């Protein structure tokens, strides 16, 4: 892959990222952060790759720690996000209709 291809991907990803993330409501910003922590766990791929060609003791240690750090991000990030979003999801809303009339209605559509 040429450097310019990589840059093209990078620049497009910036626009996609801003476009998608700017639509996340402030209420969900904490789960957003923990989910991006999990997605950042993608660096574990780098850990796996460098561990693949590690050749001495120091490189074994570095690579193993990098893989472990990445796994913490992936497993911990996705699991804690799931836990948090579960709290937002469970809303029996017995009184929801009482407030639906107070002029805010438009947002409820979908």
């Amino acid at each position, binding site marked *: 892959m040429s450097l310019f291809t990589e840059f093209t991907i990078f620049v497009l990803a910036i626009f996609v990222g801003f476009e998608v993330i700017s639509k996340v409501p402030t209420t969900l910003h904490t789960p957003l*952060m923990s989910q991006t922590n999990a997605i*950042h766990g993608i660096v574990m791929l780098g850990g796996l*790759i460098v*561990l693949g060609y590690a050749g001495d003791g120091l490189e074994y240690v570095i*690579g193993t720690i990098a893989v*472990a750090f990445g796994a*913490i991000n992936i497993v911990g990030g996705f699991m804690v996000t799931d836990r948090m979003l579960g709290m937002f999801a469970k809303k029996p809303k017995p009184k929801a209709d009482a407030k639906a009339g107070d002029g805010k209605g438009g947002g409820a559509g979908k």
Partner: protein
Amino acid sequence: MISLAVLEPGGDAATALYIVSFSLFILGLKQGTHPSTAKRGNLIAAVGMAVAVVTTLLLDGMGNWGLVAIGLAIGSAVGAYASIKVKMTEMPQMVALYNGVGGGAVALIAWSEIRHGIHIGGAMPLEDLIPTLLAAIIGSVSFWGSNIAFAKLQDLIPTRPLAVPGQQIINAVLGIGVIVLAIVIAINNDPPSQFLFILILVAAAILGNLVVLPIGGADMPVVISMLNAFTGLSAAAAGFALQNVALIVAGTLVGSSGTILTMEMATAMNRSVANILFSGFGGAPAAASGSGEQRPVTSIGAQDAAIKLAYADTVVIVPGYGLAVAQAQHAVKEMANQLESRGVTVNYAIHPVAGRMPGHMNVLLAEADVPYEQLKEMDEINPEMSRTDVAVVIGANDVTNPAAKNDPNSPIAGMPIIEVSEANEVIVIKRSLSTGFAGIDNDLFYEPNTSMLFADAKAAAGEIAAEIEQL
């Protein structure tokens, strides 16, 4: 050495699978725009991650399987345990730690890449070397900066700004030194010097420590968001170094997210990111306020507060970091339940920087089963304030201070606030009249329509709930 070696690194099949993987990340984040779909979105992103990991394990050149298994097992166990055990009040610490390990992983990968380049021998191509150096610098800064942020949030070190004399100069020297070292390595890249590379890691580590140490507790939402953006960028840089499209896209998505949050937090404080990073805000004015004049306040007890609340039509609860510290979210929800059972309309006004990270209060209240619809953003609730009978401020301070609007000389002048003083009556639940993070008196406490309830947030909310029940 065993190798599955099904896929060729950089080959069509591997690249196609990586494209599937990052598409799932984007889809997952898109679903995160609404609470009803966000949980599914998180699962979709997790599937994308599984695709990326399996693809990588099938690449030719994978090996050292025993170590791979150890790393995966330890990391997964730690991550799973922490995610189950963490309290919602501790989410800022958790995210700070995740930022840290993410940055640390990138710095270690960069180190390994340099050693790999040296082993291969000859000049390391600049298009690999430069992103490797960038990944090392940003990764090391994020790792150490995040550790300090974690230590502050966990109260392991003082949350007040800690600064050494000549801090800015030291930071500037370190920053320039790191860049000069990187240039020297890039020029003499045949082979690159591991010694200088380690110097870069160390200098960046010191820089990470020194940049975050002077930043106070209430500025943490900005710091955590910024470190989040940094880790994303470091992953993207590692992607350039390893020519891995999944790392480039995923890292960039995380970088975008962190950047957006950083800007939103800074806007909510009416301060520039540079000002937050380099001003050591809150240290100096705190000393001055000790001499503050005595102004009369109205103090009430739980019973009077309960009466005011129970006979109101509309109540707005304004939570702040103090609510998290007191673990008062369930008690507050119980108080709201009592009010709602009497027909009182209850809403929650959330300032963007209430708490220690973006969205901190929302998660706490969601944990206590507060319906999503009752969590109002600042811009949404402020126009409602003048029609609110009672505003209850629980553990919030600076974000309610009318001086931000009225006093152009105030350190927080211009900061958007929740305009509680517009409400007919205000009840402030607080332990004492002590100043908030900005180190200034809150004029709200002395206004004629404000009553102070001096108590612990959790105890007070519980007492008020009990009193309302007996009315």
